[in-house]
C-alpha cells in the first residue's frame, strides 16, 4: 500500500493515530491492533521531515503500540482466571490508549470550533474609544481602578494593532510621489496663511501616508532653517504651534531653493 504522507500535517502521534482510525474506518473501541500498528509504522517510515523534539514522541508511541499488540497475542489459559492478580492484568491492554485518543479527540474538535469562532470574529469590527478631550476635566483622576498586570498591557497593545490594520491608504494612490520638498514648503506656508498666520502642528499632517508625512516634515525643517516659520510649544504635552515668521514671505524666494 502506498500513499502520500504529509507528516507535518499531524500534531503528534495521537493525531496520526486518529487519522488512521478514521481512514481505516476502525471502531475506536475495538481497535485491531495489528492493522493499526502496521499502518502507523508505514507512516513513520514515510516521514521525510520530522521535528527533532517530536521524533521521540512518535517513537515512544510506536513502542507502546507494539507492546499492546504483543500483549494481545498472549495466549489465555483456562484456570488463570482464578488468580486475582492476573484478573487485573486481563484488562484490555488497549484501554489506556483508547482513553487517551478519545480525550485528545475532544480537544481537537474544540480547536476546530475555536477556529470557526476566530473566522467569524473577522466579520465585524469595533471602533476606538472617542477622543473625549473636550469633556475632560483638567486634572484627571485615577486612570486605573483595577489592579493591572502585564497581560492587560499586551491586550491593550493587541487591540491597538487590530485597530491599526484599518488604516489602509485611503487617499488612494494619487501619484503623490512627485511631491517635492519645495512644493510642500509652499503648501505648508499657504496652509499656515489660511489659518491666519499660525496653526497647529497637526493641521499640517492631515494624511496618513508615509511619503507625504516625510516630505511635509522635511519642508518644515527647511522652512525653520530659513526662518520662514517658527515652531512653539507652551508647555509639556501642549500642542506644537507653527507660526509664519515673516508675513511677507515671497513665493519667489522659494523658487530659488535647490532641491
Amino acid at each position, binding site marked *: 500500500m502506498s500513499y502520500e504522507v504529509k507528516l507535518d500535517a499531524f500534531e503528534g502521534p495521537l493525531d496520526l493515530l486518529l487519522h488512521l482510525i478514521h481512514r481505516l474506518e476502525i471502531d475506536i*473501541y475495538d481497535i485491531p491492533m495489528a492493522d493499526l500498528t502496521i499502518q502507523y509504522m508505514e507512516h513513520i517510515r514515510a516521514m521525510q521531515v520530522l521535528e527533532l523534539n517530536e521524533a521521540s514522541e512518535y517513537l515512544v508511541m510506536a513502542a507502546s503500540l507494539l507492546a499492546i499488540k504483543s500483549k494481545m497475542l498472549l495466549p489465555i489459559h483456562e484456570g488463570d482466571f482464578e488468580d486475582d492478580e492476573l484478573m487485573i492484568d486481563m484488562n484490555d491492554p488497549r484501554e489506556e490508549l483508547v482513553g487517551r485518543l478519545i480525550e485528545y479527540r475532544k480537544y481537537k474538535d474544540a*480547536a476546530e470550533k475555536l477556529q470557526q469562532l476566530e473566522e467569524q470574529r473577522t*466579520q465585524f469590527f469595533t*471602533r476606538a474609544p472617542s477622543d473625549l478631550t473636550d469633556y475632560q476635566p483638567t486634572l484627571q483622576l485615577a486612570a486605573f481602578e483595577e489592579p493591572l498586570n502585564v497581560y492587560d498591557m499586551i491586550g491593550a497593545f493587541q*487591540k491597538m494593532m487590530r485597530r491599526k*490594520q*484599518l*488604516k489602509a491608504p485611503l487617499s488612494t494612490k494619487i501619484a503623490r510621489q512627485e511631491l517635492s520638498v519645495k512644493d510642500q514648503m509652499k503648501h505648508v506656508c499657504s496652509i499656515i496663511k489660511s489659518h491666519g498666520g499660525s496653526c497647529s502642528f497637526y493641521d499640517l499632517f492631515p494624511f496618513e501616508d508615509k511619503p507625504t508625512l516625510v516630505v511635509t516634515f522635511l519642508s518644515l525643517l527647511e522652512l525653520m532653517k530659513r526662518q520662514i516659520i517658527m515652531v512653539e510649544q507652551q508647555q509639556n504635552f501642549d500642542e506644537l504651534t507653527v507660526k509664519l515668521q515673516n508675513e511677507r514671505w515671497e513665493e519667489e524666494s522659494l523658487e530659488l531653493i535647490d532641491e
Partner: protein
Amino acid sequence: MNLLMSKIESLLFVTGDEGLSAKQIENLTDATPWEVKDALTKLQEDYVNSKVRGIELKELAGTYQLISKKQNAETIQRLVDNPTTQPLSQASLEVLAIVAYKQPITRIEIEDLRGVKSERPLHTLSLKGLIQEVGRAEGTGRAILYGTTKEFLNVFALNDIHELPPLPETEVNDEEDQTDLFMTKFQETFSEQKV
C-alpha cells in the same frame, strides 16, 4: 425609553472597543436594571431589523459594545491595510482549546493530553496575549498554571468563558461508556471460555 436608548447609543459609541457593562450603563443613565435591559434589547432589534443601520450590539469580553454589521464585512475589509493578525496554527489552537477548557492547567498536563511537547505553542499564545500565567501548582515543581485572558475573549468573540461551545462529551461519561464496553466484551469472552 427612546431617550434612554439614545443615551445608551451615545455612551456605547464613545466607549468603542472598551464598551460598558449593564451596571455601568445603569449608573450613567440613572435607569433601572430592567429599563436598561429592555433598551438594550430594543436597540439590538432596531439594528438588526433596519436595513439602513450599519452597526449592531454585542456582548464582548464582558461588556456591551457596538460593532459593525456583519453584512458589511466585505466593505470594511477594503479598509484593511495588511492584516496584522495571522490566524493561529493548528498546534496553537489545540493548546488554546485545552487551556480554555481545563484552566488552570500546567504545561505537563497539556503535553500529556496532546502527546507532544507544547512549549512553542504556549509561547506563541502568551506572546499574542491569549493566555497568561494564573498561578503556580502545588508541589515540588511549582509549575506554572495557565489560563485564558480577556484578549482571548476578544479574539474569539466571546462574552464570557462560559460561552465556549460545550466539549463533545464529558470526560466522566466517556470513561464510563468505555469501561462498560470493555466490561461487556470482557464478560462475553469470559463466559464463552467458561462454557
